[in-house]
């Protein structure tokens, strides 16, 4: 039977099947290697924040015991730190767009969100100590596949980016994923009565739900 197949006109189908499977296998292997490499890169990139996480914890200890005389220098350092985290976040966003959110990435992302939340709480503390010298603008967004929400969020992110570029060191902009089921985020959402993502929290007083015009946001910052 095997001999008949090998010597008959059916042989072409077996041969082609072999070549096709070989091509698919090579394609899959190459694809997986590329995907695996990129996922690792994202995870590694997130891991770089581990030092920042320790750094920010120590900053928190310092903020609690500091006096007003060091406010200027501390705020300056806080901005450098916040800007660094924000810019790294933008770069990560581009990597994430090209990848599925794997479990490994998700775990690292949660750590990154916690770091940003800690930065936010530190900034609040700093504002209290130094009598409101800057604005905090927390942008709580959703990790969603919903097209309309994605468009809405892209629009808000673009407006906030512009405002941050314009205002510079007057504001700390903190985009935070609000639906990663993290206790501290859930707590903040309850405190500020946030039931809809995306929302913007300005100076822990104003909550703006959904898309807002640039002027509307700026109104609370001037």
């Amino acid at each position, binding site marked *: 039977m095997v001999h008949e197949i090998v010597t008959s*006109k059916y042989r072409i189908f077996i041969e082609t099947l072999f070549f096709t499977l070989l091509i698919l296998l090579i394609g*899959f292997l190459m*694809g997986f290697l590329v995907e695996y490499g990129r996922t690792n890169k994202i995870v590694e990139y997130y891991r770089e924040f581990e030092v920042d996480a320790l750094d920010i914890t120590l900053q928190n200890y310092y903020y609690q015991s500091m006096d007003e005389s060091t406010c200027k220098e501390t705020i300056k350092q806080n901005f450098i730190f916040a800007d660094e985290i924000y810019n790294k976040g933008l770069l990560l966003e581009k990597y994430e767009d090209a990848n599925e959110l794997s479990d490994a990435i998700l775990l690292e992302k949660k750590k990154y969100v916690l770091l940003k939340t800690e930065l936010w709480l530190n900034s609040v503390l700093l504002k209290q100590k130094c009598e409101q010298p800057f604005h905090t603008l927390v942008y709580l967004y959703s990790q969603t596949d919903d097209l309309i929400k994605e468009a809405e969020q892209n629009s808000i992110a673009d407006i906030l980016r512009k405002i941050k570029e314009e205002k510079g060191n007057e504001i700390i902009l903190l985009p935070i994923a609000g639906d990663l089921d993290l206790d501290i985020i859930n707590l903040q959402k309850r405190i500020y009565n946030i039931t809809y993502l995306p929302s913007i929290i300005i100076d822990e007083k104003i909550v703006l739900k959904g898309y807002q015009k640039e002027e509307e946001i700026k109104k609370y910052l001037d």
Partner: protein
Amino acid sequence: MDKIIILYSVMFFFGIYFLLIFIILKFRNGKTIYDYPEAKKFPSITLITPAYNEEDSIADTIKALLDIDYPKGKKEIILVNDGSTDKTLVIMKKFAKNHKEIKILDKKNSGKSDSLNQAIKIAKGELIAIVDADSYPTKDALKKMVGYFEQDKDMAAVTSKVFVKNKKNFIEKFQDIDYRVIAWSRKILDYIDCVYVTNGPLSVYRKEVVKKVGGFNTKIVTEDIELTWNLMSKGYKTKMSYSAIAYTSIPKTLRAWIKQRVRWNVGGFQVLSKYRNYFLRENLFGYFVISYVSLSFILSFLGIFLLLRFFYYTIFKYLFTIPYIMQGYNPFIFMEIKFNLTIMLILGMVFLLFSLFYHKMALHEAKNNNIPTIFKYIFLYRPLYIIPLVIALYKMARKDVGWYTK
């Protein structure tokens, strides 16, 4: 694994598999593509042309039939007037007056299949050649086909290569490419005895065999495909002579093109349905032809689904931002190109490369066989296939195929 990735993988698997079959067969047999068995003794042949309201083309077709080079006294021509309401019959009679080999069968309109069956009944030839009323075989075409029948008693049908006659506008030029690709791929399948369509512009059949299998089916709109499948399912052989050429008139407008392709698709569905029990049974017809044709349809639908999904995720995403664009949002952010080297992209590139290679080989005789033309053919013309396919499916679902048959 994501369901969509599975769908893409299935599509790429079968797509690459079928393309490779053609490419490998071409490399193994390509040198003999123009070969055909020379006929030693020429059997008598009856050329049959059924016509319904073909006053614009019938005269040229009759001239072409008369010009065909074949031993004297062995060629008979039967022109069937299928109840035409124009001057078709008048033109036929004019030719018949001066040429004794022409016979006219004038009958009430009953459709192409019935016209052919009636003509076969009175045909005297050992072989019959079917020529559409808007087609024009070249002088030497028959001589390059009849030799196949001497080779093998089981040889039931031999088909020819069809070129388009008129090719001026977009739709005509791309049909020209289409016909060349179809002809080449059909010849490649000839190497594994899988010529599953004997075309209407010029195909030759062994008359006794056609009679034995019941002639042309009057209930199926693509009677030529049905007859071929009928013959193959009964173990008869079909071949293609790549050197035998027939020119044919093609639809000049998109509307006419859609109508023609709807008929082809409806016919395709009908024969698939009729011969479904042969699937993966007995011979190459069951194992390959039915699988190949049904998978072509399935892959087309899969392609439609994935294309619609693509539009949904790109165009709609863009549309959803319109309210935000009106608020001053920069829409060009969505136009950022992300070169994601994913598995699907790699497989997609492999598929595209094979596809380009396949079309390049298929268009070896065409003047315009450069890569940009092939790209236009693949990405502009081929997606149009979706329209008649969907219409055909709709008509089949509604059992609305009566307007094609009598």
